[in-house]
């Protein structure tokens, strides 16, 4: 619960022909994460299944594109596991290749029709502008012995540059309609000047020639009528294509479901990648398995593999720690809070897993900042009501609501009324200084806990020096203690206690000395970095502690908002009074609820996680049969 599961590094030796079956069984068990690091044993130099992987990727690529083009949603079930052979993938490659050729052709046809539709629309729009040219458009299309004429579209960004470029070939460019992305242009020049060079420039500039239809020489009304007829025909063609697509989707559904099933069963072997090495008939596979599951995995393999195999397991070596994946065994009740932890990152192997601390402190801080029996009850009920829509997150909302209600009893606050029930502890506004002091003590406890977790994590990593002298190590705890003692003396007696001050300075000096040894940089930069880092350590401790004053401030803020709502309500008549109260409470609930959530998360992430949680661990991602609903094990 407090740290990732202990892992074992596992090495398996088996016959190479069993690899597809072996990887499939591993994926079915969901316990094995491949270790892709290079291997030292020269005998196992080759990575098997190169062709298999190529085929898999090509098939998968084709399948994805086909499914997207046909607009299908595939969800095949799986009753029996069956290892996929290379020959099977070859066959699939041919089938999917043919189908993709067909789909690609249809897609191109659809695109051409859409493009033509757009052209018809543009022609319609540009008809007036062509008319504004006040020339016989037919002449632009006619071959001339002296004039070379082009009409078409140019990307707006290339317009000026193209004008300058073709000017060098003796051509002139006239834009006659400027669209958002393209300009309609006429390009005219002497026929002898271009000598074919013009078309090279036009091609590079993305010039798209517009053929002026003979209809444009006709009456505008008749032209528009013809364009409308073309549009109808195009719409009919498009509809026909879509019907064909839908029909082909149904016809090929079974084939594609089967292809997806095959590829899903082939995927585990592909994902083994360089974790599997072969020396011919014999293969070596390496990976990570939770220590408590090694036996189950071995039994599963013995039962289902055709030939014998050899398995050896060992503990991770210290130098391997960054490579070891972290497998969490989070209790069910904490899982919704894991989502917030994952937003920050994955714990390294052996590091403290902060979900439990996050759950307790987040719920407590939410309640402290938003203590109200009525609002808390509404939030808790909202959590229950939203259960089908927000998944496991409902529990976070529910617990936050309960905490809010519990603190409401402590503060004696119900929907902002401070007099309906007697506070078990204190009404926040009756002694704000006490509230601030309590928040400060909470903050100190929170920061000390975060610092202790950081020390634990450094020790687990095998870095005792960092645990002692790092920014969140033992020395920082001493500095923090000295700082707090000095501040307390100064505030209570007006003087700084010599012991506290000395401890703080000595701890700070020890941290600076550690950095001097650790930092590898030229002398000037080294000094600059240490000065900045030391200053940062001092400021960070002070600002982090003061940051927790917001816990009290938002508790006070809740009462102040309630007073504002009541003041407004008291200015109204009876009906207005109740409407203002209801709307005011809703406003407080939504606005303050959101702000308090953000503030509590901010304290967790910036004052908590940033001190001890690196978040750069590797998540345990075992081989699995992704995307298939498994109905029954083979």
């Amino acid at each position, binding site marked *: 619960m407090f740290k990732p599961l202990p892992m074992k590094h596992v090495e398996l030796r088996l016959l190479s022909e069993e690899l597809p079956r072996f990887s499939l069984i591993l994926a079915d068990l969901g316990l094995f994460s491949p270790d892709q690091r290079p291997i030292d044993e020269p005998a196992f130099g080759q990575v098997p299944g190169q062709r298999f992987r*190529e085929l898999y*990727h090509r098939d998968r*690529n084709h399948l994805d594109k086909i499914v997207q083009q046909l607009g299908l949603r595939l969800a095949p079930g799986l009753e029996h596991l069956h290892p996929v052979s290379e020959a099977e993938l070859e066959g699939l490659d041919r089938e999917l290749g043919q189908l993709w050729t067909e789909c690609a052709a249809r897609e191109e046809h659809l695109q051409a029709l859409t493009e033509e539709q757009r052209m018809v629309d543009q022609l319609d729009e540009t008809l007036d502008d062509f008319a504004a040219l006040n020339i016989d458009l037919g002449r632009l299309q006619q071959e001339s012995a002296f004039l070379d004429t082009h009409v078409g579209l140019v*990307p707006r*960004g*290339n317009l000026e*540059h*193209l004008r*300058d*470029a*073709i*000017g*060098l*070939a003796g*051509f002139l460019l006239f834009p006659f309609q400027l669209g958002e992305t393209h300009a309609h242009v006429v390009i005219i020049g002497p026929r002898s000047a271009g*000598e074919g*060079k*013009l078309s*090279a*420039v036009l*091609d*590079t*500039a*993305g*010039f*798209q020639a517009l053929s002026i239809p003979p209809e444009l020489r006709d009456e505008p009304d008749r032209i528009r009528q013809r364009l409308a007829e073309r549009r109808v025909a195009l719409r009919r063609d498009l509809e026909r294509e879509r019907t064909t697509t839908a029909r082909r989707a149904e016809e090929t559904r079974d084939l594609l479901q089967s292809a997806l099933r095959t590829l899903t069963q082939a995927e585990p072997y592909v994902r083994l990648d360089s974790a599997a090495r072969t020396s011919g008939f014999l293969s070596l596979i390496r990976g990570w398995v939770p220590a408590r599951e090694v036996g189950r995995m071995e039994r599963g393999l013995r039962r289902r593999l055709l030939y014998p195999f050899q398995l050896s397991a060992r503990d991770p070596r210290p130098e391997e720690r960054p490579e070891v994946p972290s497998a969490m065994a989070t209790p069910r009740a904490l899982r919704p809070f894991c989502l917030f932890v994952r937003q920050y990152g994955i714990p390294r192997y052996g590091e403290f897993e902060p979900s439990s601390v996050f759950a307790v402190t987040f719920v407590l801080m939410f309640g402290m900042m938003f203590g109200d029996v009525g609002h808390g009850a509404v939030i808790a009920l909202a959590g229950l009501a939203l259960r089908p829509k927000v998944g496991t997150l409902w529990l976070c909302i529910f617990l936050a609501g309960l905490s809010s209600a519990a603190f409401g009893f402590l503060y004696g606050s119900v929907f902002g009324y401070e007099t309906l029930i007697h506070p078990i502890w204190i009404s926040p506004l009756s002694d704000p200084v006490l509230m601030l002091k309590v928040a400060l003590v909470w903050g100190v406890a929170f920061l000390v806990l975060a610092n202790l977790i950081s020390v634990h994590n450094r020790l687990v990593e095998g870095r005792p020096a960092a645990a002692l002298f790092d920014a969140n190590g033992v020395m920082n705890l001493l500095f923090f203690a000295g700082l707090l003692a000095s501040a307390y003396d100064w505030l209570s007696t007006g003087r700084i206690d010599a012991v506290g001050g000395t401890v703080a300075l000595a701890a700070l000096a020890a941290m600076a000395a550690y950095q001097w040894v650790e930092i590898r940089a*030229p002398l*000037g*930069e080294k000094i*600059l970095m240490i000065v900045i880092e030391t200053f940062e350590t001092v400021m960070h401790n002070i600002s982090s502690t003061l940051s927790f004053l917001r816990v009290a401030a938002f508790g006070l803020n809740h009462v102040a908002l309630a007073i504002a709502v009541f003041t407004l309500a008291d200015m109204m008549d009876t009906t207005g009074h109740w409407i203002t109260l209801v709307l005011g409470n809703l406003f407080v609930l939504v606005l303050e609820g959101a702000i308090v959530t953000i503030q509590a998360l901010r304290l967790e992430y910036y004052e908590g996680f940033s001190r001890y949680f690196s978040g750069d661990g590797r998540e345990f991602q075992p081989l699995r049969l992704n995307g298939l609903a498994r109905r029954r094990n083979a």
Partner: protein
Amino acid sequence: MPSANITRSEAYLATRVAFLARQLIDDDAIEAMIDRPLAQIPRLEGFAPLLEPPMKGQARSRAIENALIGTLLAELTIVLRAVGGEIRDFFQFWARRFELFNLKTLIRGKLHGLDPRAIKDNLYDLPPYTRMPLAALLQAESIGELLKMLEPSPYGDIARQARLAFEARHEALYLDATIDRLYFGGLVKRAERLEERHREPLRRLVRGLVDQQNLVWLLRYRFAYALGPAETYFILIPQGLRLDRERLQQLCSLPDFEAVIEDLPPTLRGALGTAGTAVQVERALETLLRHEARDRLRYSVSAPARAFAYLLLREIDLKRLQVLIQGQALGLAPDLVREALGVAERDAEPLPQRRAS
């Protein structure tokens, strides 16, 4: 003292750049490295293992390039962290050129029908903040599909026009030129958007870079590939510092290499000295750019301009180091390496006047 004018928010960037600038290598330092084995050169000792077996051929070149580009991008990341708003946008756009290198490699790979793994081996390793979906692009079955996949990305404009250019003419040369033209156009546009204090020095550097690109392309495409004046002009970028659009049009119309060199503005003409080939012109212009960038790095009041000048100089330095390392890897004679680095000719280099901005 110019630094007194730097606002407080730029002080950090200026300080970082000042520290980073201590890594720059002058000609004397590079000269001293030529005859020494890599293992004995402190800043290059990390490259020594790349010269040993089993590293060889293209894999070794790629590993060296990746290491050098990694260094450059790490320093660019330092700069990016220190800036915000439109200045950040400018530097981020500058970082995109490394992604465009990858895009060009992808296109060439697809054009030659290489399989995705072979293409992937030739791509640069870029930091995670870059945004080109390389894994998806590798799976594209054609160049058209590849460029279409890029259209919804920040590279949309470049991809759209590149696709049109490629569909019209299936030649990598025009595709490369279109991508570069649009990229540099975008970079100039971003420099122009900055506030006056940063705009002036940055635009001089960017437009100077455009001049270098333009002149080399002009000479290469017009006279080596024999393209016509209009076609050559169209692939150039009409936003240079000394080579503006009128001057470019005029140069494109000239009949031969010598006439173009003679017709250049005096500063460029002087910088070229006796350069008689496109490669020599490229090297001479790089020397000019180095002088100008050093000038900005020392005297500019704009910290982003100093940072950009530093990045330009660092990139040139790293290219020179690459030549040096490759020279040792291939066992080239020191004189040949010296010639490739251009240090043999430096006595003849012109030294432009210092110009504060």
